[in-house]
């Protein structure tokens, strides 16, 4: 208990130091402090990753900032400031930012809820829908009940997918540029080149190489050139 308390106190002190360094323009030192806090595991990682993104941005390391922002986005989905910063940096670095589809907007809205609260909300919607199906035989009320049940089930499916089947792993190119090769060896043919800050889907990983998948087919890039978004 005392150890946890001391850890929290040390964590809080480190955060204060990091914030002071940031305000004073010592972005490198601030970044180091936030990294120390992050590795200690004592604080919520979402805001810390966001702050690391800010520090990297101030240091001119835009690809690193995108990497940190994307990691923070997993933990703080729907955070407006985070989304703004990420889009701003992607624009600065010259990446095309895809406009949000309606589906992704809905996903963002759902992701903004804590999972437990969302589950409760879906349960209530479903309960109302089922009760409506019991009592209403026809008409708009029955249609509305069916709609409620379908919405609840869709939300539940989405929740189950995000919680237990997260899907693809992303990575951000942190090197200035990286060559995509046909295989995991530096002598193999170059099939593409990626710019810093680009987000790619990871299909496979080894100690030194990462296989990416994109619309052009994908290939292999050195592991040290990317930061895996986890």
């Amino acid at each position, binding site marked *: 208990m005392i150890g946890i308390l001391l850890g929290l106190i040390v964590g809080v002190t480190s955060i204060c130091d990091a914030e002071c360094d940031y305000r004073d323009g010592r972005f490198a030192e601030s970044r180091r402090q936030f990294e120390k806090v992050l590795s200690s595991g004592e604080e919520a990682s979402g805001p810390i990753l966001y702050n690391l993104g800010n520090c990297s941005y101030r240091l001119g390391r835009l690809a690193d900032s995108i990497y940190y922002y994307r990691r923070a986005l997993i933990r703080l989905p729907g955070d407006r400031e985070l989304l*703004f910063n990420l889009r701003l940096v992607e624009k600065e670095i010259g990446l095309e930012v895809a406009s949000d589809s309606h589906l992704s907007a809905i996903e963002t809205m759902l992701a903004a809820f804590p999972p437990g609260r969302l589950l409760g909300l879906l349960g209530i919607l479903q309960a109302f829908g089922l009760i409506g199906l019991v009592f209403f035989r026809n008409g708009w009320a029955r249609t509305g009940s069916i709609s409620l049940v379908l919405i609840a089930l869709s939300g539940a499916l989405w929740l189950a997918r995000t919680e237990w089947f997260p899907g693809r792993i992303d990575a951000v190119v942190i090197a200035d540029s990286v060559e995509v090769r046909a295989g995991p060896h530096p002598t193999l043919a170059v099939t593409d080149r990626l710019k810093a800050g680009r987000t790619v889907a990871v299909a496979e990983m080894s100690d030194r190489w990462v296989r990416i998948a994109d619309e052009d087919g994908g290939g292999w890039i050195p592991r040290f050139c990317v930061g895996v978004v986890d």
Partner: protein
Amino acid sequence: MRHLCRFLGLLVFLILPSEGSGEEYAFLEVDTVQDAYFVQEPVRVRVRFGLDAEFFKASSIPLFHRRLDLSVQVLAPWLKGIDGMVREGQLESRGGRDTRTFVLNDGPTVARRIDDRRIGDRVFEVYEISRRFWPSEPGEVIIPESTLCFAFATKFADDFLNGRRPLDRKDASVSDAGMSLTIHPLPDSGRPSEFTGAVGRFFVQADASSTVLDVGESFKLVLTFEGEGNLAFFETPELMDLSGFHRYGKIETKEASKRTVTYDLAPLSGEVGEIPAIRFGFFDPRPPAAYQVISTDPIPLTVTSLAGEFTDPPPHGEIDQSALESELFSSEEDGFDLEEDIPSVEKEAVRRDIYDLKTGGEIAAGRAERGGVSPVAFFLVILAPWPFFASFLIWRRGRSRGRMDPRRVRALTASSKFQELAGGPDPDLARAFAEFLADRLGDPAAAMISKNLAAKLIAAGVSEELADRASEQLGRLVDARYGGDAPTSGIDTIGAMVGELDASLAEREGEL
């Protein structure tokens, strides 16, 4: 003060020798170079003992069966560990040329012979062992008392079988009172950011395994730390932020006089022209005690990369502001309308910079950021209601279907209808009973008055005995009705029979 006490002790030793105390024939000293040290500054503690050469040659008796050069035992348990200090692995007396074996605490070891010491007219052979310690925290460190033990005799007898035997064995000992050291903390003022705990005086050198590289090609950078101090204890640089390089890992090797760190690095771009100077800070405790920062020499590199066929992203700060604004704040093309989404932003003051840090309150709130959903909770909330809902629907449908079936409706109301018909002031029991049977069997009432009634009842599941009774009863009622006589059975009897038939038929329907 300590030296004065030692002098007085020697004086006493010379003037007033005490039999059995051993002070006349030996001495023991424990000392350090200085009385005060800094945290992590190495402290060499020396234990010296002197033996009257002639006396020990003539009169000493072995203490142990094991053959030793010096028949003495030094008791200094603190050599195994002192509170507040970390000890070095081995005694420093090992490896010398002129060494003698003796017993230290509970085992044999060797002491290095140093210069003899003449006290009065006696020559003492002096031996020394030492060990290094590293103070781990400021404060006072106590080195406890140490004792030198030996045995001697003044009379011996020569035995043909056992050799020289002592006749008056005396056990003796001499002690050193111990000492205390003052350990000072390292000063906070002037501590450089490069300081990672090194105390002493050090030199560092950098070497690269290769200086002609391709982008991404790994090479080894070796940092060698040498010098006097806590070489094994300080943290070596991580080099995680070495500009232009990626660090795969590092390996360390430690030797007595140097520490080597090998980094596995790779240059990230062709613009990297050198390995920059690597700075290292340490605290030099020698007067004037102060922090120092040294650095390695930069190592030139030749890094080859492919010619760029695409445009590099513009460096930070050189942004086409108007293009950025039009792209960022277009509400027609982008789905992400920053003007609408930014909280409390005036239309005229459009945001062009990232949002500020998330501070302590937001971090604290973020501790409960997402959590998860357990499969059990998901099942209970979403899936569990469905079986109940389905069961309810099936039950309700079954009930509705039952209500809509005319035969079923007749059967359900047969008993109440009989009661109604038989309960009137002038009941027609024959008709009431026939109606009951007709409702229950789903046939017209007239069809009940037949010889096959019993068979129909049996086919409907009524027992043969009851069916026969019911058929006979209806026959009697019909005969009584058309014969003009009063029925032979009362309404109660018929009512009981109706109840029996109802129960029997209902049981059969329930089975179906």
